[in-house]
C-alpha cells in the first residue's frame, strides 16, 4: 500500500485524514508544518505527498516548489479555501491534483490511487522500446521521456498527459476527456488542472512555449500531440 506523507496544520483534519487513510491500509506519516514535512521526506520516502495549502510558516505552495526542485513524486494539494487563485498557484507550482476540504476518505483515496496509477500499455500491442517524435523519445513501458537523449523529469500528471496525448498523435482531446483519462475525474471537474499541467509540460519539453510543437492547443476544442 502507498506511503503517504500528510502535511496538515489543523489537528482534527490531520488526525481525521490520517486515521481514515491508515484504516484503508496506507502508511501515513502526518506532520504539522511544511518544514517538518520536508525534513521527514528523505527518511520516510513517501510514494505521495498530501499537502495542505494553508500552512502556518512555510506555505504549501512553497513546500511544493521545494519538493519539485529535486523530486517528481506525486503531490496532491489539500485546500480549505474556495479561493480559486490558490488552486491555480498550487497547480503552477507543480501539484498534480487537488482536493477541496472537507472530503471523505474514500474521495481522498480515490485521488491518491488515480495519481499513482500507471497508464497501462495495451496488452499484446507491438510497442517499440522508445517512440521517437522529433527530439522527444517516449518510453511507454519504461515510464520515461527523453529529450535529445536526456531524460526529462516529469511529474506523474505531466507524464500521463503526454503519454495520453502522444498515444494517438494528431487526435484532439477535449479538456474534459483529458480530465477523465489522466486525472480520472468526473466529467465536470476543474479544467484548470489540464491547463496548468499543459503549461508545466510545455515548459519542460518545448523549445518555445509561445509556439509549441508537441502539445498544441486547438481553440475551443482542446489539445493534441503534433503534428510535428
Amino acid at each position, binding site marked *: 500500500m502507498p506511503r503517504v506523507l500528510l502535511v496538515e496544520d*489543523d*489537528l*482534527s*483534519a*490531520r*488526525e*481525521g*485524514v490520517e*486515521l*481514515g487513510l491508515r*484504516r484503508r491500509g496506507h502508511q501515513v506519516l502526518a506532520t504539522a508544518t511544511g518544514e517538518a514535512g520536508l525534513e521527514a521526506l528523505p527518511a520516510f520516502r513517501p510514494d505521495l505527498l498530501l499537502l495542505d495549502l494553508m500552512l502556518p510558516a512555510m506555505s504549501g505552495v512553497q513546500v511544493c516548489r521545494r519538493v519539485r526542485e529535486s523530486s517528481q513524486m506525486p503531490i496532491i494539494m*489539500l485546500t*480549505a*479555501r*474556495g479561493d*480559486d487563485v490558490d488552486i491555480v498557484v498550487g497547480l503552477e507550482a507543480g501539484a498534480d491534483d487537488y482536493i477541496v*476540504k*472537507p*472530503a*471523505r*476518505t*474514500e474521495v*481522498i483515496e480515490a485521488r491518491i490511487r488515480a495519481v499513482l496509477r500507471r497508464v497501462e500499455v495495451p496488452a499484446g500491442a507491438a510497442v517499440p522500446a522508445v517512440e521517437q517524435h522529433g527530439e522527444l523519445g517516449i518510453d511507454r513501458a519504461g515510464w520515461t521521456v527523453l529529450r535529445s537523449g536526456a531524460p526529462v523529469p516529469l511529474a506523474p500528471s505531466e507524464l500521463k498527459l503526454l503519454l495520453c496525448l502522444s498515444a494517438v498523435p494528431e487526435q484532439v482531446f*477535449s*479538456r*474534459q476527456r483529458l480530465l477523465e483519462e489522466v486525472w480520472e475525474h*468526473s*466529467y*465536470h*471537474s*476543474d*479544467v*484548470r488542472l489540464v*491547463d496548468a499541467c*499543459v*503549461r508545466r509540460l*510545455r*515548459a519542460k519539453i518545448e523549445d*518555445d*512555449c*509561445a*509556439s*509549441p510543437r508537441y502539445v*498544441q*492547443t*486547438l*481553440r*475551443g*476544442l482542446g*489539445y493534441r500531440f503534433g503534428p510535428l
Partner: protein
Amino acid sequence: MAAAFGLRTRLVIAFLLVAAVSAVTTAALTYREARSAVLVRAQDTAVASFREEVEQFVPELPLDPDALRWYLYDIAARAKPHPWIVFAEYGSLRASSGDRPVSGVVTAELRRAALTSPHGSFERVVKDGSAYLTIGMPVMTRIIAGGRAVPSGLVLFAVMPMTNEEVDIDGLVTAARDGALPGLAVALVPALLAARSVLRPVRALRRAAHSMGGGRFDTRIPVHGRDEMADLARTFNESAARLEDSVQELRDAGTRARRFASDVSHELRTPLAGMLAVTDVVDEDAGALSPDTARAVRLISAETAKLAVLVEDLMEISRFDARAAELNTDEVDAAEAVRGTLSGRQWLGRVHAELPDGLRIRLDPRRFDVVVANLVGNALRHGAEPVTVRLSARGGALITEVHDSGPGIAPDALPHIFDRFYKADTARSRSSGSGLGLAITEENVHLHGGRVRAENPPGGGALFTVELPFEGPASPGGETDGRPSAQSGSGPADSRDRTGATT
C-alpha cells in the same frame, strides 16, 4: 404655460418685458411733456403776438369791409410764429384775410368766450386730421383815461395751422420708437447673461443630482458667493454628504455580513475536514457497537455529510455575494454535459433525457453541472418520477427543461422558490439539501447571463426552465496555437476567453 418654456426663455422674456415696459413708459412720459412744451410755446407766442396786433388795431368807424380786409391782411402778414388767417366778425359783418369770410374751424364756444372775455381766449381744434390753434380776441373801445375799456363788439379771430408742431411731435414718436427697439436688442445681452448666471448653478445642480443617482455619492457642487443658488448648492452638498455616510454605513454593514458568512463557512470547514474524513471509519464499525450507540454514531455521520454540503453551499453563496464567482467558460456539447451530470450521480436510470446532439455552447461546465444537478436533484427529491430533462435551442437561447411528475409547487411558494433557505414543503424541510440549491442555481444561471424560472405547467408536475444565451450551433474552430500568444504561450485558448465575471 410656464412649463412649456425653459427657464432660460422665461428669464429672457421677463427681462425683455421689463425693458420694454420701462422704455415705453419713459417714451410716453417724455412724449407727453415734450409735446405740451412744444405746443404751449407755440400757442403762447401766437396768443401774445395776436393780442398785441389786436390792441394796436383801432378800426375806423363805421366799419368798411374793404378797409377792414386790408387791416386784416396787415395783421396776417405779421403772423407769429406761423402764418395765420385772420377773421373779423362784427354783427353780421364778416371779413377775413383768407379766401372765405368765415372760418370753418372756429367753434361756437370760442366765439362766445371771445365776446365775453376782454383778454381773448384760444382753443386747439383738430379738424380733418389737422390741428389748428384758434384765437379769439375782442377789439376794445378806447375811452377817457381812468375808465374801463369796453368791448366794441368787433372780434378778430386767428386760425393758425400747427403743422410744424405735428411734425415735431411725430419726430418725437419716431425717435422714441427708434431708440426703444435697439434698446430692447441691447437689453437681450444682459438678459442672456443674467439667465446664464442663474442657469449655470442650476445645470451644475442637475449634473450633480444625476451623478448621485448614478451611485457616485461623493459628488459635490462648488459653492460660489452667498446668494440663494449658493445656499442651494450648500444644502445639496450637506445632504449628499449625509447620504454618502448612510450609504457607506449600509455598504459596510452588508460587507461585514457577507464577510461573516464567508468566515463562518471557512471556519466550519476545518473541523468538518477531520469529521468527514472519519465518517467512513464510523460507518464501517457501527455494526459492532450496541444498537443505540450505532444509531447515534450513524446519525452523527449522516449529519456530518449534510453539514459538509451546507458549508460548501454557503461558501458558494458567499462567493456570489462577494462577486468573486468566476465564469470559466469552455465550449461543450450540451447533451454530453447533461449526460455527464446524470451519469456522475447515477441518475441515468431514473431520469428520462431528451438530449439532441449538436448543441455546442460556450459555458462554464462546472457551473452548468451544478445547475442541472440541483434541478434534477430537486425534482427527484421533491417531485415524483418520471423526471424528464429536455434540451432545445430556441431564439438565441439554449433551453434546459427539468420536469417532474409530482404535485407541482404550491402557488404561494412559486415566487420564493429561488430564495435562500426557502423550503416550499415544510413537512419535508429536513429531508436533504441545504436549502441553498435553487438559490445557487439561479446565481449560476445569472452569471451566464441567462434566466431560470419555475412553473406548474397544465399537464401537472413542476417545470424548471433554464435559458442560457446561445449563439447558435458553434462551428469548431480549426486554429492551432502555432501563432504566438500574449502570455507565455502555455495558456490554451480558454485562458484568453476566461471571463472575470463581476456582475
